[in-house]
């Protein structure tokens, strides 16, 4: 029993990371109807920036804040320069562009920083808590994810920019008629997603250790979690990410044929989707004739 609870809780901690990246994916999907396959690699690259700053002597939180700002700006630039040309093109073209960005970020990171695995400091001490069910680091990660979700919620619900972004995503033509610069809203959306991704990367690096391939698996699980929760729902993203984390952990622990961990985990999740093809919290894409 103790082991089961332990696995569930450490699954929640892993799931919190998937949830964060899933949150970024949902943000971009709501704004631009695109899955950003490069989200994980962008996050990895941001983490390397943070690592460089920390190695240069900056205190952790200063490096964190600077990385967030740089990532936000980078996300905006990527949207304006690299995604805008295919925003009105067939969906597949945009998908290929994000996959191309994935390859570019991964390869360039490997070139600049090499593929040697690096250590990365964590702001949270690693002490056991709740009778060794979790560590303070796990709690820290979950707390950060929930804080991000709350901040995003407040941003979209209570600020004019957040409202304008929601409007631009729902009905870009009407948004323009209200004087909203839809292009800028899209860029801000990507910037926020990049900042969220950076946060996720910085939380993952102490655990998985920093190397260019750090986020590959995370992206796949985040994508799964986002879809499980409903690709249009931020709350769904978090719930989905957490569920995926726990499922992955439990399957890994209790499945005898451990080489099939990924297969079984996916099979379970897809089973759920068969009954809820738009995810747990997703709304069906209503098609008007």
């Amino acid at each position: 029993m103790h082991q089961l609870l332990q696995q569930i809780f450490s699954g929640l901690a892993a799931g919190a990371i998937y949830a964060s990246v899933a949150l970024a994916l949902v943000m971009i999907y709501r704004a631009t109807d695109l899955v950003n396959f490069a989200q994980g690699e962008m996050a990895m690259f941001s983490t390397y920036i943070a690592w460089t700053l920390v190695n240069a002597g900056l205190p952790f939180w200063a490096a964190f804040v600077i990385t967030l700002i740089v990532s936000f700006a980078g996300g905006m630039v990527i949207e304006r320069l690299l995604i805008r040309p295919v925003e009105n093109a067939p969906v597949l073209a945009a998908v290929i562009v994000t996959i191309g960005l994935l390859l570019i970020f991964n390869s360039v990171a490997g070139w600049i920083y090499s593929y040697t695995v690096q250590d990365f400091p964590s702001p949270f001490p690693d002490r056991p808590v709740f009778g060794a069910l979790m560590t303070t680091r796990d709690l820290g990660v979950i707390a950060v994810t929930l804080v991000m979700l709350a901040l995003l919620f407040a941003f979209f619900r209570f600020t004019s920019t957040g409202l304008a972004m929601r409007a631009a995503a729902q009905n870009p033509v009407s948004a323009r008629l209200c004087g909203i610069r839809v292009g800028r809203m899209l860029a801000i959306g990507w910037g926020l997603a990049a900042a969220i991704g950076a946060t996720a990367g910085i939380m993952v690096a102490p655990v998985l250790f920093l190397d260019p391939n750090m986020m590959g698996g995370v992206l796949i699980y985040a994508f799964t979690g986002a879809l499980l929760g409903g690709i249009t729902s931020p709350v769904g993203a978090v719930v989905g990410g957490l569920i995926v984390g726990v499922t992955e952990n439990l399957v890994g622990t209790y499945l005898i044929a451990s080489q099939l961990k990924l297969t079984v985990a996916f099979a379970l999740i897809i089973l759920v989707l068969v009954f809820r093809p738009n995810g747990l919290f997703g709304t069906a894409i209503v098609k008007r004739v």
Partner: protein
Amino acid sequence: MAPILELRALKAFYGQSEVVHGIDVAVEEGGMTVLLGANGAGKTTTLRAICGMVRSEGEILFAGQKLHRRATEDIAGLGVAHVPEGRGTFIGLTVEENLRLGGYTRRRRAQEGVQRMYGYFPILAQRRRQQAGALSGGEQQMLAIARALMMGPRLLVLDEPSFGLAPRIVDDIFAIVERIRRDERVSVLLVEQNASLALQLADHAYLIETGYVVASGTAKALADDPQIRRSYLGY
């Protein structure tokens, strides 16, 4: 009085097809001008051209400024508020959020603007927290107009406000529009298929057929014209 909006030799295109073939229209400041015509005449396309939503050639002058080639959001910022065909409300957002969006370009005065809109359209105040998509057709039209007025525009562009609405509701809406025009001192450019109602309210009218202006003048002159009466007013 100088016209607040002038279209000179305006051509408008849907993709490659030229739909409006060089028209001249003027909207007097503080007045109401209506574009009449049958379905497909090019009236909506003209309005879209003014707001930069379709490709156009020719001149569009708004309060002395050239609008041609400007982005839609810039034109909105200059003081042109467009209520599109089909209303264009944000159906996934609440009534109050829709109004706040109208006030996006004037954020500091937004709250007072919202209260004023509730004054003109009390039914919206009642439904302020409901999703716009749950409103009836007439209420959505009022919301769309209110949202446009939140921008504090000098020119209000209305595309077929009576579309799909019961006559009594249409009368209510037009009464409010007339009141607003006087109180807020907004010029109005209206596109309507309901010719008799439009000619009663408007000062000037243009009749558009297949992309050409075939008649223009004061609303009274067009309403008295026997040919127009036969073709568009039914008597």
